[in-house]
């Protein structure tokens, strides 16, 4: 006997949308929105949260940021959800370290009337009202392959240097990369390996070395993580492989400027993290004002753009920006 997986009917996978939306409701002022990134002091999240802070200021609400100092301290993040709940914020924007671990706490928060928006990294859909996706996962995955394939002339071995093996967003992107690679125009491009650098500079470094030693004919590397691409670029630029192995992926212009200029990297992409935070803040306020509930098909205006909520309450930021030698100097983040 006993309880097995098949006894447990899978829980509702749709997001927590309750009540009805009134698109014309006034935007409330004086709300408090708490931002809870995966890790405080992480430059990427700091940019994102700064974006959120600016948006909230503009909307007449107040901003606060709490968070663990380590990106793997899941229980710490859970405590912070609890803290925000205790402090009775009106809404929180969370970038989840773990899709499941925060659920209980987030549901507690929602049952206390707090609106929950996830950004950058999602939880399971029923634990939050809406998710702000940095870019459609499909877009990101596919464009990175397109970028690299062009750089290596649609021919040769390539590898992927990812972050942690459990990073949900990374894995989704990699799936789309593989789908893109299955297209006939990439018949000469071969993905030989996915390596994991755990978003740690040294490990990413050594993984890059290992890739190059194991596959001496490697032509290109995709690293869809800002830490990974930076480490790989630093290694390449100081090694004999500089200029011989192409590197692309997700990076910030400030991190990568030097490597673009010295020829290690020709192009990479990213969305603007500040815009991500901005949208998260505006969505949170819209939810708290009752303009939306998170149901598929609802629309709302954030700043000058109008967004439509997709399946499972996912709101997509738009296409990422590609940076290269010609445009990189006009960005500063």
């Amino acid at each position: 006997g006993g309880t097995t997986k098949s006894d447990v009917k899978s829980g509702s996978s749709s997001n927590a949308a309750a009540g009805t939306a009134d698109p014309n409701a006034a935007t409330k002022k004086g709300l408090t929105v708490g931002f809870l990134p995966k890790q405080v002091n992480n430059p990427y999240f700091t940019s994102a949260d700064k974006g959120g802070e600016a948006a909230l200021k503009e909307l007449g609400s107040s901003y606060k940021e709490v968070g663990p100092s380590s990106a793997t301290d899941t229980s710490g993040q859970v405590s912070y959800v609890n803290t925000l709940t205790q402090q009775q914020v009106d809404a929180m924007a969370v970038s989840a370290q773990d899709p499941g671990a925060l659920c209980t706490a987030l549901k507690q928060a929602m049952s206390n009337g707090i609106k929950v928006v996830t950004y950058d990294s999602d939880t399971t859909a029923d634990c939050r009202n809406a998710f702000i996706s940095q870019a459609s996962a499909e877009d990101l995955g596919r464009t990175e392959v397109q970028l690299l394939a062009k750089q290596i002339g649609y021919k040769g071995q390539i590898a992927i240097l990812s972050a942690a093996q459990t990073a949900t967003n990374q894995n989704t992107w990699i799936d789309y990369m593989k789908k893109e690679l299955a297209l006939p125009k990439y018949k000469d491009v071969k993905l030989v390996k996915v390596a994991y650098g755990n978003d740690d500079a040294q490990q990413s470094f050594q993984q890059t070395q290992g890739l190059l030693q194991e596959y001496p004919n490697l032509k290109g590397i995709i690293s869809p993580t800002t830490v990974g691409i930076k480490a790989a670029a630093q290694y390449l630029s100081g090694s004999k492989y500089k200029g011989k192995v192409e590197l692309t992926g997700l990076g910030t212009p400030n991190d990568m400027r030097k490597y673009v200029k010295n020829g290690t990297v020709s192009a990479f992409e990213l969305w603007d993290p500040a815009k991500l935070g901005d949208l998260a803040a505006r969505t949170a306020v819209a939810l708290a004002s009752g303009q939306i509930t998170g149901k598929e098909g609802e629309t709302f205006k954030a700043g000058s753009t109008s967004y439509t909520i997709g399946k499972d309450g996912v709101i997509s930021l738009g296409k990422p920006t590609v940076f290269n030698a010609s445009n990189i100097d006009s960005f500063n983040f």
Partner: protein
Amino acid sequence: MTVTTPNEAPVTEVPASSGTRLVDRVFKMRELAILIVFLAMIGVTQAGNSQFLSEQGVKDLLLNATILVLVATGQSLVVITRNVDLSVGSTLGISAFAAGTYLHGGGNPVVAIVLAVLLGIGFGLLNGLLVSLGQVPALVVTLGTLYIIRGIDSIWVGSRQITAADLPGSFVDFGSGGLGAVPYLALIALAVLVGTAYYLKHFGSGRELYALGSNPEAARLAGIAVRKRILVAYTFCGALAGLAGAMYLARFGNVDSSTGNGYELTVVSAVVVGGVVFTGGSGSVYGAALGALLLTSINSVLPALGVSSVWVLAINGVLLLLAIAVDRIVAQRVAAALKKKSAFEKSAVQKGEARA
């Protein structure tokens, strides 16, 4: 007592110290065992991947080990005195950032390195003072300073980061450049290592570190300035952590508030694998350096052999266990052989006597 004892020396003129020279060799064997494990590992890898020991490959191996070797050298000094410094990772991180801040927008690289070392010395002094003057357990104190320095670091650094773009090109080139396959950084580490080892073996104050780790109470009675020596060991350890911070900056060209996080466990592993005993008084910095080389090389060997990253962590752990277990078993075997040998000599002496 009025015992009538023969006044001539006992007739146990055991044949010159062949046994003890063997004992000496056993201690060297510990390092030898690690070296053999290391060489075997490199050999297997080279057989599986001919690119591994290319010029670039060797350079990478050495570069990877450099920073850990520096920190492990400093750490062994502290461990030899029967203490430990868990705050090295935090010190490394904060001094790397300090050096980076100074270099931001162009500064003199030498000054930056000195700055990092000075900062390291500062924190080393703090640890040393707390441990030696307070006479409190080093593990707790340095776990405390680990948190304190890390906290100060993150408050100061915030979300800022230093990237290669912020650093003078010469400094970054220095970080990856070298003489042939031998990187400059590795040369610096080697010089520090050899200097430290020489000091420990040939200078009175170096030997005193061993003495006070071996038996602190006896050291006090022997008139050794225990507190001062411990202070010096911590300061030196801090200085090397600071230097390693500067090297880290040059090597990775990338420092933020989490740099060096969790490094203490790696350093402690290296030191332990290298045969420096945690109860103080024994071990050598060469052993610790070999331990560091072994540990970092495992991380290069596995990817080079094409082992999936999924397996790396587990294999890493198992290899670490194997290294210490093999070391131990070899030591036990040799000790047993030694005992047999001396037993044999003893009975030979007895037979000789019986015949006489």
